[in-house]
């Protein structure tokens, strides 16, 4: 460099061109660097409720609390007559509406063992909805065992499809984090809200079962099947969780199947000797009342089942089922 030669005119233009280009790069790098600069450490996800998702109230506003207890051995008959006693499915489902039936398909267990919703009952309720003019009926649940096997072995899939309903099997994209307003357990927890998109009416369907942890598994606990994630952790405070489920969703109606009640070894059962043919079907617009009525089938009182009292506290219904529009019928 002891003999620098001055840049020639061509080199100068080229130099200015390169200067400009370098200047643009510098400006780009600088703005990206400074623009994305974050002086603070990344925040860990706190327990703050970030999800604003809320489920709509699916109950029929005009309808006061109604409950019908129907006695009989044939599910299709008892459920039809029970709905009739409440004013018919048409009082609950308007023509053109979409209905979602949340069944219990928790275990890959045959219908005879009473651990899951009976396919005959599923088919009957689907037909009732379609007869009332529903545009589409969806049947779904988030099972404990493998979903495809559960829907197949319980016979629910076949029954639903045969009677004209769509079965939705859970998958990751159907879950969204949700926080229950007033709850401390269900905070930013994945809930299966995908199938509820565009649905107008929700009917919960559950068999009456003994449950070692919560005392009984009936229509209030049925909504556990909408939770995702590692939901077993809630067993440590299961009654409060069921209370929060009652806060989370207000269904149009619930169907509590006590045709065969699982008296012991619930919720999985596994033996016919666990079942008692109590021949009762309870249909209600009030899930707390339905559970309170169903407790007697298990030989338990409301005091034995703390979740009923807790759900009642939230205003989800009343345990005094006889105070509702109460009907008790015998079918053939």
């Amino acid at each position, binding site marked *: *460099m*002891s*003999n*620098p*030669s001055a*840049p020639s005119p061509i*080199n100068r233009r*080229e*130099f200015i061109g*390169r*200067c400009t*280009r*370098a200047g643009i*790069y*510098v400006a780009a*790098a*600088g703005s*990206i*660097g*400074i623009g*994305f*600069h*974050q*002086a*603070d*450490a*990344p925040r*860990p*996800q*706190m*327990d703050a409720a970030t999800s604003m998702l809320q489920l709509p109230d699916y109950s029929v506003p005009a309808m006061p609390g109604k409950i019908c207890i129907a006695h009989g051995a044939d599910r299709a008959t008892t459920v039809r007559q029970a709905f009739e006693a409440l004013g018919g499915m048409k009082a609950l489902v308007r023509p053109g509406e979409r209905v979602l039936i949340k069944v219990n398909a928790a275990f890959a267990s045959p219908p005879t063992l009473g651990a899951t919703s009976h396919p005959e009952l599923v088919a009957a309720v689907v037909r009732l909805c379609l007869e009332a003019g529903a545009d589409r009926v969806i049947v779904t649940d988030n099972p404990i065992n493998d979903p495809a096997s559960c829907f197949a072995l319980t016979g629910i899939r076949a029954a639903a499809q045969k009677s004209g309903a769509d079965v939705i099997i859970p998958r*990751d*994209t159907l879950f969204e984090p949700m926080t229950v307003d007033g709850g401390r*357990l269900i905070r*930013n927890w994945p809930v299966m809200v995908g199938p509820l998109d565009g649905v107008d009416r929700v009917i919960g369907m559950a068999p009456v079962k003994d449950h070692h942890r919560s005392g009984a598994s009936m229509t209030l606990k049925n909504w556990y099947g909408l939770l995702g*994630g*590692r939901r077993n*952790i*809630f067993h*440590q*405070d299961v009654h409060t969780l069921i209370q929060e489920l009652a806060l989370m969703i207000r269904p149009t109606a619930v169907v509590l199947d006590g045709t065969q009640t699982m008296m012991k070894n619930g919720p999985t059962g596994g033996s016919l000797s666990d079942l008692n043919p109590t021949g009762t079907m309870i249909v209600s617009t009030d899930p707390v009342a339905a559970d309170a009525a169903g407790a007697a089938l298990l030989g338990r009182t409301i005091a034995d089942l703390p979740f009923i009292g807790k759900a009642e506290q939230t205003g989800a219904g009343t345990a005094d089922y006889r105070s509702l529009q109460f009907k008790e019928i015998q079918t053939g």
Partner: protein
Amino acid sequence: MSNGYIRIGLTLKTEHLSLSMSIILTRRISQIFFFLLFLWFSIVTTLGEAWWQLRGWPVNWLLELDPLVGLGTLLATGTLYAGLLWGLLTILLTIVLGRFFCGWVCPFGALHQAVGWLANRKRNTSQKIKANRYRRGQTIKYIILIFLLGAAVGELIARLLRVATSQSTVDAIIAIVLLLCGIGAVWVNRKSWQQWISGLLAVIIGWVLLGLFTDGSRLLAASLQTGLLDPIPLFFRSVNLTLLPLVDGRTITLSQGTRIYPGTVAIGLIFWTAVLLNLIIPRFYCRFICPLGALFGILGKNALYRVGQKAEGCTACGACERYCEGACEPSSTIRTSECVLCMNCIDDCRHAVMGYHAYPSAAGETAAPDITKREFAAALVSGLAAVPLARMAGNTGENWNPAVIRPPGSLPEAQFLKRCIKCGQCMRVCPTNVIHPAGLQSGLEGIWTPVLNFRMGSSGCQRGCIACGNLCPTAAIRPISLAERLGKDTFTDQGPIRIGMAFVDRSRCLPWAMDRPCIVCQENCPVSPKAIFTREEYRPVRLEGTLHLSGMQDNRLLFDGPTLPAQRFATGDYYVTIDDSHPRLPVRIIDIGPNGISLADNPFVETARTGARITVLVRLQLPFVDPASCIGCGVCEHECPVKGHRAIRVTAENESREPRHRLVL
């Protein structure tokens, strides 16, 4: 460095009081300066207030200057964290000056240059020139860079693709553009314009289709793996973990205990291989492997100032390539992106032709690196594809490894893997030496990321220590305050940070399985109230035969039966009851001697009958862990006297950073 001896390069002309200084000398001073700075930063990274300990030394400055760290984290996380802004300075200077970092700052490069020079001393000139010729293999470092950046950019691409499908305004714009393109395609006649329009159409349709296809899928994910080969983290890692712990001896002691690091054989091997490869080709790592050098090559290819030939005078003697560090062919068409600004060619040129100036070399330049579009595409796609494949193992999901205990303040795993550059600073500074580089425990992505092992080190993860997070240059481990660590002041609701939970192995625990009193774990549990509590149990001791009462005197029981050695039974943990006599509560044995068993007091004196059976019981305190209080610090595991496979072990359940791993409500 000419004619066989070293010239200092600094001359002082006393008559004129002028000073002239060779640029080579300056470069050497700069390299030595940064090398010593690197060594100093490595040495002082121990927790303490002495001048040779951490104090406030900016030990991460060289990592922060490294723009690959900044760029990698920016692509993976969308943020440029704190001190990594220094990398912007390096980038700006590189855009103007070229690869000055490689030749003047990088301590790893300085090491390679020194070893390469030593290796070259015995070679003659033509051998040296041959060693410095350009090789096509020098494009491998660009492939490595593109691959690593591809692995980091997956999430950003997913987000860009989602824009096409998720936002209605964007959809509207796309529809309009497509409409215009359609009209244009019909209307316009010129070929080049038609090519433009069809190209644009292809891009937009491709973008929308890809967006739909990948929406919600796991096809695209980001992971930061630049730390594997980025020279600054690599050098820190190698020195921190494989060299400095070995230094502690009688004259120099940098840390209190003997520090060990499981899993560092591979790190050491890579380091020594890189160093010794310089014996074959000088600056082997810099030329063929270094992704940071590749980044500088790309950034600096159109630098304002570059090394090159002046207009006339070159005789093609090749002397300039004798000590060319970058193997950039200065004697012919110089490859600007390979030139590391060592200035050796300028010094060696006998004809004053080489210079560092603002105009291109008279013999021509190849600015761009020598990679083809095909190679670029292959590297990028491989990088993009590698991460989702690695995630298939489920290490960040259901198949998480409970043996992977991360330092307190770590981010949740998926975010952690987007920030950790595997520099080893946390492992170096940890005062109890419990952090070590992972092998495959946390999957392929987690190689050399920090995991805790409480069997080694001095005392588990110290409760009042916040060192690792405050050293981490990328906030993969957040810099937490003491209040957050302990769950005090504003963090009282959240409680202390938990890194795991201790589980008592009842089949190995001394009181549980072996009837031996011990509550070392409970004693050492540092939280208050203790997370380990005990329940008292008295168990009958197995003896060879039965003891019968033969007499009593004051507080002493005389007995027939097997001998009871005082060494074992008079430790204060053994008690007696006498059958069919009151009281039922066992009474402690104080001493055993030729005069019988001495008791703490003798309530049997009224009720015991001669011949009654004496039962010796051992009083055990059985440890239980309270999951609501345990923070997983590992002191219990460290102190457990069952020294092999410990009888109380910490695993990552209930760690604060992952709500899905919660054990209790």
